């Protein structure tokens, strides 16, 4: 870890300096009006993404842009969008905010829009620049509120925020198994204090109690101490917002130490990853409930399910999200008559209960002030080596005013 | 191979026109040297004249060129490991005992390096000749006095069952008493084991006392001298 960090950062300044130069040269060319938009020509639409392709997060992140690329390839094979083919370039940022920003500077001169990729920390680093330059940033895998609350021009996401999810999951748990005490464990996925605070507020608002919380760095080698703390605190619920492998390690430590809470382990979309399924101890499965932005398993007839069929990606929530997001992007581009960045944003802001990837994503609704599209949260449970949707809960910024969850058929 | 067979074999060292040095600074300019089996040869000369270089060139520790370089009738290869296998043990300047190892372990290393078959009896034979080493066997070599370390280094050379023992600066930094006793033990051991000795030292007097023959290194070539002839010696040194 240490060593690769040193290695990569050494050339970051060089890249950043180059990117600044290129950016300075290129910034004069984006003022042309009409359909002569940056990154759009008569036969091509240029899209790009800055993705975690190296380091510890690479294995779980890369499938999202890989799946997006597959979708764009399919669109191109089917003739493109109004005669234009999609050109999609992905650069590695190693989950390093500075490199993500350098990548944006490389892209800004000739890309039409940025496709969302892994990472709350990287999204938080680049969204301001993108918004100021008027470059659409479509559907980053982000759970941090500052990126989309309040709505920044051009920044849209389909995934729910971690802070809203921890509250929703507490509410779901209390609804299902009765109110009780909670213990919150988080990885610092971008800003994390709000995820703890909102779980605490929700629990106390609903008549439960908050026991304690713990923050563990991503890639923590030993979760046993936290499991021991939980074993002593004996909470009814453990609420977690952690990366896929870390979730699995943590759950396994709970099982090893007989510290699985009495009622449930509640988690966020961050846990809903192939890396969790491949390595968690199924002994605890019946007590695990995660929020998910996508329906799992994905509907058999969904376009992305068919596209990814026969590959491991068809069971990988992150790959499915990547494909569904790409499908949402091509839908938005198709529906935008005069293809400029501003018009594309208007198209998305006009979506109400829009089905962009039926069978995978719930309906999306945006407005000029609300750039989080999701309207309901799927509750999934691991079963063996797959997730299964067991309920759907209404999701929005005001958790209190929502109706009850409905069990899945 | 038994303990005695190696030492008994003919082990003449024959060197002619040896040239060697450090990088471009050549120290030896066409040196001729012969050591007969069982012969005790002293090599004297002032600092920097190439005494250590001569020994390192023989054991293959440094690059060298020569018209002829043979030991026991076979050419000497440019490899310290081969030199040991051919029967040449080199006790380097500064003793170079393995400080973190015990004395016993230092002796074992000598035997391992020399590919000695019957180590236990060879070791016993050497220890018997250096009785003062016995109480030190389980101490770390690095914690011994200079004289004790010199003893260990020579014993370590002898357990490799050499047919030629080369000792570099035996007397350096040691008290006259220590020099006297170690020298005597070394020479008598070599004689009893049938090994020849090539002994490099600045102390001409001690060489003269113990060796069959003393040569002087001067300007990179060897000159036979009579160590008791102080006039010749002084002219060589100054």
């Amino acid at each position, binding site marked *: 870890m240490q060593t690769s960090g040193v290695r990569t950062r050494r050339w970051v300044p060089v890249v950043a300096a180059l990117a600044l130069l290129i950016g300075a040269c290129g910034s004069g060319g984006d003022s042309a009006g009409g359909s002569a938009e940056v990154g759009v020509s008569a036969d091509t639409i240029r899209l790009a993404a800055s993705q975690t392709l190296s380091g510890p997060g690479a294995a779980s992140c890369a499938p999202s842009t890989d799946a997006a690329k597959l979708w764009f390839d399919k669109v191109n094979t089917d003739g493109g969008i109004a005669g234009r083919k999609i050109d999609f370039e992905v650069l590695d940022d190693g989950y390093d905010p500075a490199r993500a920003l350098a990548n944006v500077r490389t892209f800004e001169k000739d890309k039409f829009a940025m496709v969302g990729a892994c990472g709350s920390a990287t999204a938080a680093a680049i969204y301001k620049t993108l918004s100021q330059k008027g470059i659409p940033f479509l559907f980053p895998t982000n759970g941090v509120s500052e990126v989309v609350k309040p709505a920044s021009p051009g920044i849209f996401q389909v995934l729910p925020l971690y802070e809203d999810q921890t509250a929703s999951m507490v509410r779901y748990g209390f609804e299902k198994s009765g109110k009780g005490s909670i213990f919150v464990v988080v990885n610092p996925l971008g800003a994390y204090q709000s995820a703890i605070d909102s779980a605490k507020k929700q629990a106390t608002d609903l008549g439960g109690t908050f026991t304690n919380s713990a923050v563990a*760095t991503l890639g923590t080698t030993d979760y*046993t*101490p936290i499991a021991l703390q939980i074993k002593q605190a004996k909470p009814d619920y453990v609420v977690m917002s952690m990366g896929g492998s870390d979730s699995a390690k943590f759950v396994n430590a709970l099982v090893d130490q007989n510290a699985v809470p009495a009622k449930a382990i509640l988690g966020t979309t961050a846990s809903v990853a192939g890396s969790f399924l491949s390595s968690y101890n199924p002994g605890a499965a019946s007590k695990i409930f995660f929020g998910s932005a996508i329906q799992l398993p994905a509907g058999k007839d969904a376009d992305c399910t068919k596209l990814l069929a026969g590959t491991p990606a068809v069971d990988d929530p992150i790959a499915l999200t990547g494909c569904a997001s790409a499908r949402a992007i091509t839908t938005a581009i198709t529906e935008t008559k005069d293809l400029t960045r501003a018009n594309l944003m208007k198209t998305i802001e006009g979506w109400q209960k829009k089905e962009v990837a039926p069978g995978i994503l719930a309906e999306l609704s945006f407005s000029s002030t609300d750039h989080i599209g999701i309207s309901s949260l799927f509750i999934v449970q691991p079963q063996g080596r797959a997730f299964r949707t067991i309920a759907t809960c209404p999701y929005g910024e005001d958790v209190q005013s929502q109706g009850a969850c409905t069990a899945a058929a | 191979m038994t303990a005695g067979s190696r030492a008994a074999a003919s082990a003449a060292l024959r060197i002619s026109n040896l040239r060697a040095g450090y990088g471009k600074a050549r120290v030896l300019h066409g040196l001729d040297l012969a050591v007969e089996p069982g012969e005790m040869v002293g090599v004297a000369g002032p600092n920097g004249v190439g005494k250590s270089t001569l020994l390192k060139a023989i054991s293959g520790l440094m690059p060298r060129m020569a018209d002829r370089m043979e030991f026991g009738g076979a050419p000497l290869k440019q490899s310290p490991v081969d030199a040991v296998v051919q029967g040449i043990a080199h006790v380097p300047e500064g003793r170079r005992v393995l400080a973190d190892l015990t004395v016993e372990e230092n002796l074992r290393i000598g035997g391992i390096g020399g590919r000695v078959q019957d180590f236990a009896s060879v070791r016993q034979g050497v220890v018997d000749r250096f009785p003062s080493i016995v109480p030190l066997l389980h101490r770390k070599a690095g914690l011994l006095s200079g004289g004790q370390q010199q003893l260990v280094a020579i014993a370590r050379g002898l357990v490799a069952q050499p047919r030629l023992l080369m000792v570099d600066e035996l007397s350096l930094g040691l008290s006259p008493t220590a020099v006297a006793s170690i020298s005597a033990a070394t020479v008598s051991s070599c004689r009893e084991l049938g090994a020849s000795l090539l002994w490099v030292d600045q102390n001409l007097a001690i060489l003269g006392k113990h060796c069959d023959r003393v040569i002087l290194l001067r300007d990179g070539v060897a000159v036979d001298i009579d160590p008791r002839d102080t006039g010749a010696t002084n002219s060589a040194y100054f």
Partner: protein
Amino acid sequence: MGLLLSAGISGIAVGLLYGMIGFAIVMLYKSTGVANFAQGTLATLGGFVCWASMTDLGLPLWAAIVVALVASAVLGVAVYFVVIRPRPSAGNLNITVRTLGLSLLLLAVMEWRWGAGAPYRFPAIVEGTGVQVADFVVPAQSLLIAAVAAAIMGTLWALFRYSNVGLSFRAMAEQPDTARLLGLPATRLSAATWAISAVLGTVVAILLAPSSFLAPSTMESYLLFTFTGIVLGGLTSLPGALLGSVIVGVVSNVTIVALSLEAGVLVVFALLLVVMLLRPQGLLGRPESVRL
């Protein structure tokens, strides 16, 4: 109090793991003077060879382990001849940097071959409920790790102390030139050291993988603690590597429970700093005993 005690015992369990990785590094350092930064990735590669033997070749776990151990011995020798041996005059710093480069290369190879789909859940060698000590449940795998750690340490100790090969390793480590002068076959010994340390690494990877999962970067988060542990214990001492690593595990886990997770790392590094200032050779390391 019960919680702190349990945390302490859990720290011993994880510390043993750190220490086992440390063994291979210490053993190589003892014999060649090189701090091998590629130890972690070499070990992970061994773990993946075992994994691939099971999934791709369909071998049972025990056979896959044998394949992996043999393969890593060969790999260790290959690394020595290809990466370490050329231009020995470049010095130990140069060679240490080469191991760093090798580590990055191996990491990239593993990302390319096995990156997608990682981490993998690796089968445990022993199943069972483990043993309850205070409030802490020692998992069966941890008991196995403790037993293997003890066995490896005993074997290595005996090797270095009593065997001709081990003695030669130590001579080479202390004075490579003198060792050559005394007739020790330097090349063969060095190659053997690399083979042994690679095999050790693979043993650790196979023991570690069931709890940490198998991914190309699995070892990296452990290495930081391992290096801290072996420097704390004295870079040249095998018992020191174990002691230092167990101290790191116990101190960090107790601090985590008593204070917070961040404090755990902080206290460990503060401890390292204090030990380095007061006892630069580490807890069980020996000061250089060469008389000049």
